[in-house]
């Protein structure tokens, strides 16, 4: 972590390594492809989305494999970020101060570490739902089931497959909602997106939204000038 301070330009704070950013974008691209292809089969009016994947048959083949990529990629994100997402006492205060959060009055909220309680909710929501999507998805995946049957000797009953379909759909909707929250927050809170594009945020951004984290970075001499 370094700071770059040149006269006039704001202080910059490193937030994500290159590897973390690549990991994030592989997950992000897979997720978008998954919801596009998943929604195509979810409602007939969206079936036209299959054209983006070269038609229904190609999409049916591709979707589970993208799911495998996402699962592995998300595991990477999970291992990278879960310690920073462990709950803290102040999270509760943050979560219950809906008005201050939504109006952007962060001066009325406790100082936040690397992640606020909303970000933690997104993280843990995905951490729970992605394994659910993976398991229920395998239950709907013909080729996957053939493999599971051959290796583990497990063959789900038709009722289990029906549950898989329903759970996959419900969990899919929830992940899309979480994704909307995630993307919206990144847009609404200006200055956030550079964290995932350049790996850096401005000092002011860190001061405003993640002051405890900024203090820690400064204390550890990761932020200063030309450290």
């Amino acid at each position: 972590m370094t700071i770059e301070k040149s006269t006039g330009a704001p202080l910059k704070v490193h937030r994500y390594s290159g590897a973390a950013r690549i990991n994030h974008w592989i997950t992000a691209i897979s997720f978008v492809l998954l919801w596009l292809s998943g929604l195509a089969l979810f409602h007939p009016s969206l079936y036209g989305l299959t054209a983006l994947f070269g038609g229904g048959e190609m999409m049916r083949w591709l979707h589970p494999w993208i799911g495998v990529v996402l699962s592995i990629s998300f595991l990477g994100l999970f291992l990278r970020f879960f310690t920073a997402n462990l709950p803290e006492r102040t999270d509760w205060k943050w979560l219950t101060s809906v008005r201050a959060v939504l109006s952007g009055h962060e001066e009325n909220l406790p100082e936040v570490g690397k992640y606020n309680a909303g970000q933690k909710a997104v993280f843990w929501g995905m951490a729970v739902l992605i394994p659910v999507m993976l398991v229920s998805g395998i239950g709907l995946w013909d080729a996957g089931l053939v493999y599971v049957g051959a290796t583990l000797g497990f063959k789900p009953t038709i009722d289990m497959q029906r549950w898989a379909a329903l759970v996959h759909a419900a969990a899919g909707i929830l992940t899309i909602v979480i994704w909307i929250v995630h993307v919206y927050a990144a847009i609404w809170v200006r200055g956030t997106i550079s964290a995932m594009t350049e790996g850096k945020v401005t000092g002011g951004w860190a001061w405003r939204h993640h002051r405890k984290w900024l203090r820690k970075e400064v204390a550890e001499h990761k932020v200063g000038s030309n450290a």
Partner: protein
Amino acid sequence: MAPLPAFDVIRRSATSMPAPTPGRSVEVAKLIDASRCIGCKACQSACIEWNDLKPEIGENVGVYDNPHDLTPNNFTLMRFAEWENPANGNLEWLIRKDGCMHCEDPGCLKACPAPGAIVQYSNGIVDFQKENCIGCGYCVKGCPFNIPRISQTEHKAFKCTLCSDRVAVGQIPACAKACPTNAITFGTKAEMIAHSEKRVKDLKSRGFDKAGLYNPPGVSGTHVMYVLHHADRPQLYAGLAENPRISPLVEVWKGVAKYAGLAVIGLSVAAGALHHMLAGANRVSPEDEANAEKLAGGPKT
């Protein structure tokens, strides 16, 4: 039989708009009389021949069922069950020709996400349209009778067509044509119900007082019906469903979940847009930047 009127599609899978209403043509049905079946498998052979199927050579494991299950290359199967009737000690050989029942309310069609991959004709036949099928297997989950099979080579779903191609030109299905004992008959649904009544009466006069017609109301009736000697216990016939209906899980998945799911997504997007309009962007102020600089301290050397 006389040629039936050419049939139109009355239901089409994954299609939101209502189908044009051509009016119902005469409904057809196949009646399978389990009490007349001798288990010769002529129907299976005729099905394979007419549909030009190439079932794999199987393995004899000491049962009569051959092959062991329906496959993408085997649309119909004689299932053999032995049952000792406790009322009279007789060993009864209950043979059932399994295959698509052509439900009036087809679960496969309800579950199918690919527009037009499954259709129901105005004569009641439920047919898979291979060119629209994407091989997802949702029909397997929708079916209350466990009939459709997905080919691992073609990646498409297959099942009995009720020889819709033959029926369209006034022919009866290949299995019915081949049956040497008239256990399989085909005609209008009304004719087949009338025929079954005669058969049931005959069976009752011979001591099968629970004989009856299997035309399950849970799927609004079927276009393949059975005459059973023990109509009160369809399970005896190799597990024929007692009260088949589209699974409530499938009803929820393909009913309320579809609309609720899209509504939840739409509302989330709308909530975001509305919030941004009302609250405006959450921007970092110059004071924030100054505070950060102050915290970080002056330039070091």
